[in-house]
């Protein structure tokens, strides 16, 4: 995906969220760090363009809830910022860049349970690359990208990287594959 593909996908997701929710009331967007956060902010901006009011945006770090915590050295924590007003009774839309095994989202659901009790939780991802290991599905998908397990999907966003792009790297693990695992 190039920058314009990404922008169109996010616009479509924003509209789909509003359609499903029948408006912007009681919506909260929580991005999963790192790249889920700017995506959530962009979606929130697009919703604000359409609806006229701002939608609360925040971040939810899932590090402590990962099921592979004990398998690696202790990881750096990333920021968790729950917007003013909390998530109790709200419709929370989790936002992440890549949906892969589903374990990150499972961790996010556990993390949210310790923060409050949403009315409903939905999932928006920029890319769904398949290979689910848990019964998790996305409600809003930017692009379905069937991949093989030896490939890795790289998402670049201008907030962190040089540009906006989604690329698939070929076989061969190493750093690319590990980055991929981070996005799981």
């Amino acid at each position, binding site marked *: 995906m190039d920058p314009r593909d990404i922008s169109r996908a996010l616009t479509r997701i924003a509209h789909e969220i509003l359609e499903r929710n029948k408006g912007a009331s009681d919506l909260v967007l929580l991005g999963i760090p790192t790249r889920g956060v700017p995506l959530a902010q962009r979606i929130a901006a697009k919703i604000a363009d359409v609806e006229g009011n701002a939608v609360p945006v925040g971040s939810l770090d899932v590090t402590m809830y990962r099921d592979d915590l004990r398998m690696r050295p202790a990881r750096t924590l990333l920021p968790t910022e*729950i917007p003013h007003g909390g998530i109790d009774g709200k419709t929370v839309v989790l936002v992440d860049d890549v949906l892969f095994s589903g374990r990150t989202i499972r961790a996010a659901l556990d993390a949210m349970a310790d923060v409050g009790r949403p009315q409903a939780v939905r999932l928006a991802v920029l890319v769904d690359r398949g290979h689910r290991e848990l019964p998790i599905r996305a409600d809003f998908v930017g692009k379905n990208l069937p991949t093989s397990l030896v490939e890795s999907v790289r998402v670049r966003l201008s907030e962190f990287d040089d540009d906006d792009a989604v690329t698939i790297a070929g076989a061969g693990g190493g750093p690319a594959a590990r980055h991929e695992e981070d996005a799981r």
Partner: protein
Amino acid sequence: MKRHLLSAGDLTRADAELILETAEELRSLADRPIKKLPALRGRTVVNLFFEDSTRTRISFEAAAKRLSADVINFSAKGSSLSKGESLKDTSLTLEAMGADAVVVRHWASGAPHLLANAGWSKSSVVNAGDGTHEHPTQALLDAFTMWRHLGNLDGRRVAIVGDVLHSRVARSNALLLKTLGAEVTLVAPPTLLPVGVEGWDVETSYDLDAVLPKADVVMMLRVQRERMNAAFFPTVREYSRRYGLDGRRMDTLQDHTIVMHPGPMIRGMEISADVADSHRSVIVEQVTNGVAVRMAVLYLLLGGSEPAVGTSEGANL
């Protein structure tokens, strides 16, 4: 494998900054309805306290419990004279009970080193204060407090005032603050500065009034009255006059300068009541920060397959 936190001097700048950043994230936990994270679920943390210290023990206990660890408190009132169970036997017992980490406070300098290196147990050892040697988590929470108020500590001037000779807090702070780029000045009467302090890479001064106007942080240490009987200073009155932080001296501080104290304070001795209760004093905040910092330390040592900071097993000082 790095497994222990025995001395503030063992932390690299990267280690220290990682702990502070992690503590920053964990601090917000206090505002949540459910003040728990599952990171240390199933881990057992033992508080092994050979010296009375309700505050530090409670702080570590809160930190471990908020990370969902199981906490066992072992308080051994051992004096150097009593022939109670030896440190070795206590350690072997805890190992047999399956302790993952032992937080130890002991009256003998070097006791945590012994626990870490004697080969009696495989637990991580966190030094919660050993004799007059070190108190690394105190230094970390002090640095965290300074960082929250002043930002980056490079070039910041920190004055540590009081009984430096007997203070493990002073030692750990001097080491950690240097690592973080701050400049440390130790202020005390000559009798309360250790022999060889020139080799510590710090400034020293006998003149509190000269040091205060330039300081960004003033940390007051506790001074025990009993030191008077060993002739470290003649009277409480003289000590307070020359080295106590009172309202008059507080007025000579810069606007942004904060006043700290590791506690417990002796109001009227090293610090006057009006200073302790002033807006500059961050003494109560230090306590809150203590839990977050200790959570960070426990998480980084125990949360993963191996620790992200700390001393190597079997390393010498």
